């Protein structure tokens, strides 16, 4: 016979003024298996908790029901209380007689009757509850950061500074990310390279950081504290340790006209290349699709030129596995290439470029050496071209347009366009700058003042309205649009037109999200555990997010979110062990038929197929098995299981049905 104790709380007068608490306690005392029942003014107070603890000892109680407020408020309090008195915390149930009774009903007798019903059902459930124990899980004190942009760099540095080993995995040949492509940053006009490259060097020299560039995450297995990450180190064909980045190889490479990814395809690169001069590591990579030796088996110019014999054409991809406790995903965003509005004719006229291309043109290490020219007139040999005199910027070329582009605001374009206008006017004071905009969004520290400065001090002409078409006229571009403030059509004869294209979720991130079992939104951006309160976490414990993979972000926001993700990782990995939540799925392998319905419905990939051997017949059969580290205890499998062998600890069929049955009587 169970020995249950029932404790009815008055909550001052919150409960007692509507519910007859002494009567509820008295009736509870008559229920089968109830050994003790009482009521008290404040059960959650010190004396209230002492009362419970004392009663457990004195009356040798084996389970407890507290009838008080919502379990969402005080379940942990009373769990700790009974645990302190030597009871398993999961042998305590709460009857919610405040939020569900006294606060929502007026009639005293009805409310008292309902309170008694709730107590009765809680008693029925708790008498069927099984003691559950939190298991101790080990923690591997290492982390992987995926993506070496500014957010990933910040996260890696912060984790490493806390004394935890970090593996930074970067897909491209160098870390630095988007920020390395920028010339200056808004609104302070700091030189991007001057503030970024010291951090890149710090990554390379930090003893706690292992840098794997030209590498991709292939597979993620395991669970919080105990992940196994498989990383593909792509064949680089250059010995990273021996190479000093002298540049003899790419100077001799005969393939010189591949559009450079780093220069947003505005300039060329060679087949063996280093993406930019400050690259970390300062080691080139061979583009195997364009290398003559790797495609046709002859050439070898780079190998001949290399003074240190670093070139190895036989290099192969290598798969390595690493044990880590946590991961940070900081894979960043893509920039759309100007194709959303076909009527603008991007790709047909060289003087129609994207904002990122202009950024590269302004940069001294860019394809024109920092000369602002009309790309149609650029002579690469003489390194000269005609300077534009009339420049048109078009904002929202696909952002805020659910019909043709994306519905959201890309957030950074208003600011970088203003920055470009300022930089252009600094270099070409006589040029006219026009900016077509819908609204100016400058919500950041010093941002609005920056826009004012560009408009007033630098005389950029802001035109509120959209551009309907861009027509080539002679060697110029005629921009036709509307000025909605003046209510008239405008035509501008432009030398150079710059499109502010949207920032998009990376196309390859969906695949990565699938491998890691984290969610993406309808645009393909990664989803946080909670958009407001858990912005650095995912719904998969131990996997965190940083930077522009969540949504378009500027540099300060990316740095802040990199730091936030790092703080979460350090918090997690500084523990000696983790405690698992015991409310998890349980599968009875004796009953399991191996239909694997549960595997298909599990939102967390926490159930896997395993082969077991029958101890009697030695027959092998396939059954489902729960990984308690991954299971979050939703119980979807338990409701789906056709043979009733899956159950949810703490909410078993027996427990829930006992509760239901008593409530229906």
């Amino acid at each position, binding site marked *: 016979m169970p020995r249950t104790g029932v404790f009815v709380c008055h909550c001052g007068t919150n409960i007692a003024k509507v519910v007859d608490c002494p009567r509820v306690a008295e009736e509870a005392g008559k229920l089968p298996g109830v050994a003790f029942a009482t009521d008290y003014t404040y059960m959650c107070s010190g004396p209230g908790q002492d009362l419970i603890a004392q009663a457990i000892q004195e009356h040798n109680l084996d389970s407890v029901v507290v009838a008080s407020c*919502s*379990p*969402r408020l005080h379940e942990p309090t009373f769990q700790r209380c009974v645990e302190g008195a030597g009871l398993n915390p999961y042998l305590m149930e709460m009857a*919610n007689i*405040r*939020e*569900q*009774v006294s*606060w*929502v*009903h*007026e*009639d005293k*007798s*009805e*409310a008292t*009757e*309902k309170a008694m*019903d*709730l107590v009765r*059902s809680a008693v029925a459930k708790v008498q069927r509850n099984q003691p559950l124990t939190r298991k101790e899980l080990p923690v591997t004190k290492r982390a992987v950061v995926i993506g070496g942009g500014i957010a990933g760099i910040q996260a890696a540095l912060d984790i490493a500074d806390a004394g935890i080993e970090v593996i930074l995995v970067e897909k491209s040949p160098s870390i630095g990310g988007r920020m390395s492509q920028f010339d200056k940053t808004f609104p302070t006009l700091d030189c991007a390279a001057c503030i970024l490259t010291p951090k890149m060097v710090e990554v390379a020299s930090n003893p706690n950081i292992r840098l794997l560039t030209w590498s991709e995450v292939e597979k993620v297995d395991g669970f919080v504290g105990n992940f196994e990450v498989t990383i593909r180190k792509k064949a680089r064909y250059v010995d990273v340790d021996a190479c000093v980045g002298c540049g003899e190889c790419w100077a001799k490479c005969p393939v010189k006209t591949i559009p450079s990814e780093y220069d947003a395809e505005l300039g060329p690169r060679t087949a063996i290349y280093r993406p930019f001069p400050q690259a970390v590591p300062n080691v080139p990579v061979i583009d195997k699709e364009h290398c003559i030796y790797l495609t046709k088996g002859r050439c070898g110019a780079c190998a001949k030129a290399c003074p240190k014999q670093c070139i190895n054409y036989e290099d192969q991809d290598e798969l390595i596995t690493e044990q880590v406790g946590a991961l940070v995903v900081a894979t960043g965003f893509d920039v759309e290439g100007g194709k959303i509005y076909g009527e603008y004719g991007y790709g047909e006229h060289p003087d129609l470029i994207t904002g990122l291309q202009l950024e590269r043109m302004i940069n001294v290490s860019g394809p024109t050496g920092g000369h602002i020219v009309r790309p149609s007139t650029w002579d690469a040999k003489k390194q000269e071209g005609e300077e534009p005199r009339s420049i048109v910027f078009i904002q929202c070329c696909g952002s805020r347009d659910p019909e043709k582009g994306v519905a959201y605001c890309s957030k950074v374009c208003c600011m970088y366009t203003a920055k470009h206008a300022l930089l252009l006017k600094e270099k070409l004071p006589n040029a006219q700058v026009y900016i077509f905009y819908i609204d100016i969004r400058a919500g950041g520290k010093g941002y609005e003042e920056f826009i004012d400065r560009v408009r007033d001090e630098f005389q950029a002409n802001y035109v509120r309205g959209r551009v309907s078409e861009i027509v080539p006229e002679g060697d110029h571009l005629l921009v036709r649009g509307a000025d909605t403030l003046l209510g008239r059509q405008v035509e501008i004869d432009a030398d150079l037109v710059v499109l502010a294209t949207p920032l998009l979720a990376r196309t390859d991130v969906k695949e990565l999200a699938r491998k890691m079992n984290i*969610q993406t939104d309808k645009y393909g951006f990664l989803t946080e555990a909670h958009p407001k309160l858990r912005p650095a976490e995912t*719904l998969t414990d131990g996997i965190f997010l940083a930077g522009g993979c969540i949504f378009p972000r500027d540099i300060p926001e990316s740095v802040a979110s990199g730091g936030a993700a790092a703080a979460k990782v350090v918090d997690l990995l500084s523990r000696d062990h983790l405690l698992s939540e015991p*409310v998890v799925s349980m599968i009875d392998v004796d009953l399991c038929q191996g239909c694997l319905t549960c595997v298909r*419905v599990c*939102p*967390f990939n926490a159930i896997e197929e395993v082969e077991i051997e029958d101890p009697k017949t030695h027959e092998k059969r396939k059954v489902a098995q729960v990984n308690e580290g991954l299971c*979050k*205890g*939703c*119980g*979807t499998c*338990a*409701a*789906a299981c056709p043979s009733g062998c899956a159950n*949810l600890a703490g*909410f078993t*069929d027996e427990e*829930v*049905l006992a*509760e*239901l*049955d008593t*409530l*229906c*009587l």
Partner: protein
Amino acid sequence: MIMATSNKPKTESPSGTAWQPRLVAILCNWCSYAGADLAGSSRIHYPSNVRIVRVPCSGRIDPLYVLRAFERGADAVLVAGCHPGDCHYAEGNFYARRRMLMLNQLLQFAGVPSERFWFRWVSAAEGPEFAHLIEEITEAVRPLGPYKPELADKFVLLDEIVQMLESMPESEPCPEHAEESEEASP
């Protein structure tokens, strides 16, 4: 599940007012239960005839729970979970939606009027909506009166089948599997 006849006497409520249907609500912990809590902390009054069962996720709710509630004397059952996209477990509520849609069709086929079974999304912010929903269900069920085991009436043959099965000797395999068991036996 065999639907037994409920013998529960349906009388007037203690205070002597109009008959109150017994409503059982199975709510997910993260949204709908929190929504009910919010109705409480906002002091929004609603009929006292509802009894709430808390489960972690609407995806935990086995359709049999709903049938069991009817079997044991509930006059109406509400199942509520997080709005699509808000599920704490990412997608449990979608499974709940599929199951409950199917259950609803089954109940209707069996003659249980749709006013008795409700499946709704209630978020943690929808305290007033929760209170209103309880009122709405109560008003919709009141004219129907106490739940009669409509399902059992439909299946008049049920008892006969049970008797037939029970009268069968245990050793006799069912015809479909007779061949298999012969092969299996040594």
